[in-house]
């Protein structure tokens, strides 16, 4: 494959807090939301990022879109370094990467008609005529499964599912190269989740989109994503194709997530993972997961494991994964 990846991040670190007083003293504690992350998103793929609260998946999505300040590291978008891009350059670059938010009740301006919400990206980034804009907005509404008459109405007249469709339409209307969807299904009812997932799939096919799909529902993303990255406390602990992860989860945390997911199959046993997520203010030394890991060894509490390839697209950061000289 010779196409450059859409996004390549190296050594990405995002820290919050850490205010310094005039005398240079640390006045607020530093929280490392992302710690030294290397990640690539290939053109045309759906990369899912899963993890539980505090793992940093939302921060990762925002960081890749330059919506959150980056403390250290580099991000390249289609080969171009955007790490320090600012001001007007960044603003106009945004037409190429968009975001879909979690809460459909909060991500639409209550004082703007649906038409204007969808027209906004076009008005801001293109100089198309109002007639052209009108056509594109109405077409997009239809592509998103909404009736064209909805354009003249306001967000509060619609349900969560419909609003989320509008949010998705807004993100897709400029045919961006890259869309980050931050838990877009979490606020929706079960029956709607599947509908919206189908919408994601159909738009992807129609417009050749690339997704970074953030979710806490591992089971949903298996059937939807090409690759899955599992995060824990600011680090990526495992990454691979959906099937690789499902059939051979290498990292103990990934296995715990799979085991804990509830299943309607009465034969399947649910596994539990003890302990609590450690505070991000003071992450465990060595492997961050070792305090809860059923397979922790001595080395796990002193040495941080590096991402090691297991074969194919599959890698995991765990001392139990021995480096392979050749792909299996």
């Amino acid at each position, binding site marked *: 494959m010779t196409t450059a990846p859409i996004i390549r991040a190296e050594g990405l670190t995002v820290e919050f807090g850490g205010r310094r007083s005039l005398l240079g003293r640390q006045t607020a504690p530093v929280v490392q939301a992302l710690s030294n992350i290397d990640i690539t998103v290939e053109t045309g793929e759906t990369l899912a990022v899963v993890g539980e609260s505090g793992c940093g998946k939302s921060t990762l999505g925002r960081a890749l879109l330059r919506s959150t300040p980056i403390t250290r590291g580099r991000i390249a978008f289609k080969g171009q370094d955007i790490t320090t891009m600012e001001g007007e350059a960044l603003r106009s670059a945004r037409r190429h990467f968009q975001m879909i938010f979690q809460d459909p009740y909060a991500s639409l301006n209550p004082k703007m008609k649906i038409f204007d919400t969808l027209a906004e990206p076009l008005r801001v980034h293109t100089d198309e005529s109002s007639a052209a804009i009108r056509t594109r907005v109405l077409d997009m509404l239809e592509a998103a499964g909404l009736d064209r008459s909805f354009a003249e109405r306001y967000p509060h007249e619609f349900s*969560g599912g419909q609003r989320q469709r509008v949010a998705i339409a807004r993100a897709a209307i400029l045919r961006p190269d890259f869309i980050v969807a931050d838990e877009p299904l979490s606020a929706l*009812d079960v029956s709607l989740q599947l509908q919206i997932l189908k919408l994601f799939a159909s738009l992807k096919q129609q417009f050749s989109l690339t997704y970074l799909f953030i979710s806490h529902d591992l089971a949903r993303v298996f059937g939807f994503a090409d690759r899955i990255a599992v995060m824990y406390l600011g680090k990526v602990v495992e990454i691979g194709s959906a099937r690789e992860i499902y059939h051979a989860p290498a990292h103990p945390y990934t296995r715990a997530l799979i085991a804990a997911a509830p299943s309607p*199959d*009465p034969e399947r046993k649910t596994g539990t993972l003890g302990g609590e997520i450690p505070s991000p203010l003071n992450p465990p030394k060595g492997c961050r997961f070792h305090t809860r890991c059923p397979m922790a060894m001595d080395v796990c509490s002193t040495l941080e494991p590096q991402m090691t390839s297991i074969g194919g697209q599959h890698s995991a950061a765990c001392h139990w994964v021995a480096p392979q000289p050749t792909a299996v």
Partner: protein
Amino acid sequence: MSSAMLEVKGLNVSFQTGDGAVHAVRDLSLTVAPGEIVGLVGESGSGKSVTMMSVVRLLDRRRTEIRAEKMVVDGRSLLELGRRDLESVRGPIVSYIFQDPLTALNPLLTVGRQITEGMRRHKGMSRSSARARAIDLLRRVGIPAPETRIDQLPHQMSGGMRQRVMIAIALAADPKLLIADEPTTALDVTVQAEIVKLVQSIQRERGMAMVWVTHDLALLAKLADRVVVMYAGRIVEDATAEQLYAQPSHPYAAGLLASTSRIDDPFTEQDPIPGTPPNPKIVSPGCSFAPRCSRAQPRCEAELPELHITDDGRRVACFNPIMRT
């Protein structure tokens, strides 16, 4: 036949809003046997939370109208109960766990105070014995170092721990019926698995009856004895867990199960239920699910299907239910 722990008959709950009445619950009848775990499933607007909140009368009197033929807990009628009598029922008979422990717990009182409050009121325990019992309870719900935690405030704890505290509070007065209203929805999946395991073991230990309200059918598969599915304010199916997960009878229940995320088989394509849930302000003369139903017949939109008992002992409200082959 032993008398039911909870018996609700003909429950109707409606709210007055700015533009018309919302009929949140319509003609609902439900029974829970002693020691039985019943899962109450539905999506937003189904009326599942409103139903259980009406039972313990947690809804705002001024805005809601609750009418029922019968509402009996452990032989005691809950209708027309004054506040004082209601308080004597809440706690020792019925306990309630809320969805969001952060807002349900008093942020200004220590965890210990919140647990012992009910104990001292209902059982007249002394402060020291109540405290000892509270520490025991915290240990029982899996909180490490309970002697320290007992004096902490809710915001000093994680979400999972706060929910365990809520369970401890609910158990403090030894209830016969525990109502859990989406207790794990706001929690991570690993924490959820732990809480479910905990509640299961406590329930087995004490033989409590339980109603677990959730939107997640998968969650109830190994937890519930019986599953009750609600749609647009009514019960559409009431079957044993075994029956339901093998094959639901009501098309909505079947669609819901088919839409649930399946960790056991995630790569199989799933088909969504088309359309959107109905507007709660509009009451249709027929089945509320008919517009979205693939099995709908002309009769369905005109006539309301009542719950009837099928050959295998389920209750289903449908003119064209899916038969077990």
